[in-house]
């Protein structure tokens, strides 16, 4: 295993370079959390959340970094990270479209919305389009069942959506659709 301290994480820009030994100051935010958690091993899931917030996804380097900091075997960190659905290992697209597929949204036709966006932008649910412009996700239930079907676009929760309104929304931000 290579020494992560001297390696840079892909995606770090010059402005983010600084004093952190990795050359990427975003690790400072992870360190800050680790310190506050007193490097307790049961803080693994919380730490992974912080790391994903900071970096947008969990690269192999980040997982190894967290494993070392918490003195856990990398296999365990990898096992935990891959067990939970919310952790992602690929960089996210510029825009994200999450369609809720909870029961209420299912009854109200959420599957058609997923299919339409997926077909229009050639992006399977759970993945990012080839040009990196759009990530299409499904959620199990966002708990806004009174507003079904619900779509979350770039963090904005939108209720009572249908295929047309969602495609319009995505086209407005990502463009294309043809």
């Amino acid at each position, binding site marked *: 295993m290579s020494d992560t301290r001297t390696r840079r994480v892909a995606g770090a820009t010059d402005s983010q370079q600084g004093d952190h030994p990795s050359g990427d100051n975003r690790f400072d935010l992870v360190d800050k959390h680790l310190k506050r958690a007193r490097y307790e091993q049961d803080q693994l899931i919380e730490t992974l*959340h912080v790391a994903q917030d900071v970096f947008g996804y969990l690269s192999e380097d980040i997982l190894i970094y967290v494993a070392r900091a918490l003195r856990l075997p990398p296999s365990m960190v990898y096992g*935990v990270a891959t067990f939970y*659905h919310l952790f992602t290992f690929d960089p996210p697209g510029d825009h994200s479209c999450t369609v809720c597929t909870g029961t*209420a949204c299912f009854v109200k036709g959420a599957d058609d919305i997923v299919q339409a966006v997926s077909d229009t932008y050639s992006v399977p649910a759970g993945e990012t389009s080839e040009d990196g412009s759009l990530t299409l996700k499904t959620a*199990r239930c966002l708990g806004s*069942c*009174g507003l079904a079907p619900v779509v979350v676009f770039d963090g904005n*929760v939108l209720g009572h959506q249908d295929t047309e309104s969602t495609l319009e929304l995505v086209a407005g931000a990502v463009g294309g659709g043809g």
Partner: protein
Amino acid sequence: MAAPIDLHEVMEREREERFRTRWRVKACSSTACLSAGAGATIKAMEDLVERDDMVLEVQVIPTGCMGLCSAGPLIRMMRRGGDEADYRNVTPEAAVEIVRSHVLDEEPVPEYQLDTSMPFFTSQERVVLANGGVINPDRIESYVAHGGYQALEKALTTMKPKAVVEEIRKSGIRGRGGAGYPVASKWSLLAAASGKTKYVVANGDEGDPGAYMDRTIMEDDPHRLIEGIAIAAYATGANQAYIYVRAEYPRAIERLDRAIRVARRNRLLGRKILDTNFDLTVEVRIGAGAFVCGEETALMASIEGRRGTPQLRPPYPTEKGLWGSPTMINNVETLANIAPIISRGGDWFASLGTEKSTGTKVFALAGDITNTGLIEVPMGTTLREIVEDIGGGIPDGKQFKAAQTGGPSGGCIPSKFLDTPVDYDSLRELGSIMGSGGLIVMDEDVQMPDVAKYFMEFSMDESCGKCTPCRVGTVQMHNLLQRLCDGTGSKQDLRDLEHLCSVVRDTSLCGLGQAAPNPVISTLQYFRDEYIALIDQQEVVHA
């Protein structure tokens, strides 16, 4: 150490604040209303008050969920010591009009007025949600003004831990997470457990799709949950508690974190609570998207930072739980019921609901129904009252087909059982379960094999993989359902499906695996003809 909060002084102060202005506008700022645009509505009213110099006349108060989510954003105009008027679908422009009309002309605006005499409001009994639409969830003072933390004070200063457990036993309350285990029995087990360290855990991993009762409690009344946890810990001798929240609920996490900090500052948590000898630390732990973590042994593994896979029981958590110490896990809604039980007495609680299912139950009413939202009714209310009266029936003149309760572990109840009282035992008899409280109404257009397939896909995705019957069985059942729904299934597929249902139910390790076949079993029981029709269709095509 700072002095603890003086509950009575805060109440007095809040009362004065309440009478400071002639008008108060309560504006629902729960997640559903915010999604419907409540943020802009509230901003418009605040700007109006500022611009038109009405600061001494009107105060705008953001509150928790008012219930009728499908009509959001909701606001309530309240005149000092007098009338109230509720409004629905309040856009920013409408809000300005409504506030002006009330304050300047003393006239309501009928166009947006909400009829609060309709059964949606009058048939409910609000205990858990009593503070929804009433208090400002971000201010502990607002909670205290409505009786908050008095139950904790009463328990700590006038009751022995045993007396608290006894009161809970009298109330007859059963766990609101789904299985309906008597709460007092669990509490006694932890109280009797030996060991220096004991833990209380609030289960806020509300994973059933279609359920958002716990989220609303955590977001809109966080102190109610904290008070319940503190009373539970006092009664059982625990000094450390965790609230396990789904990561999908960032707002709940933020509000709970803040509420815990504020409670600590006011000596309602931490060391020597309210100057007694009771110490309690409460921490929030965040999930990361795994349905199985709602199962108590998996939840504990997740709190310890591990993969959330369940363990065989016994030993039960009350013997050997978190880090090997005795641990008690209660659902969020259960704990939200504790403060009212201690304040008003177990007998009062037992007088609500039915003999074996006491109290009220919160349901998230959704699907093909006119009034969607969060409701709370006494246990034993019939499904018909919920669907037809409170829910306002099925829209577009369509027919009711089934109500789904209990999520992926529950079942579908057909129209012939609409008069069944909703309580733990009646639902179980019908092959469904109470579950955490998601209630999805389906109209005639919904195909039941599709519903079964939908839930099986969910269980297949969420199977943790530890035991074979659930890991392999759910995939095979999904394949069979897929074939049947596509119209390419055979009679043998249906037989295989039924066989697998019993294998997975009888041999899975944890409750989630054992319950995974339930949606299939119940739709086969009540809507078998729909499955048969799918097969016949195929046989006709081949002929």
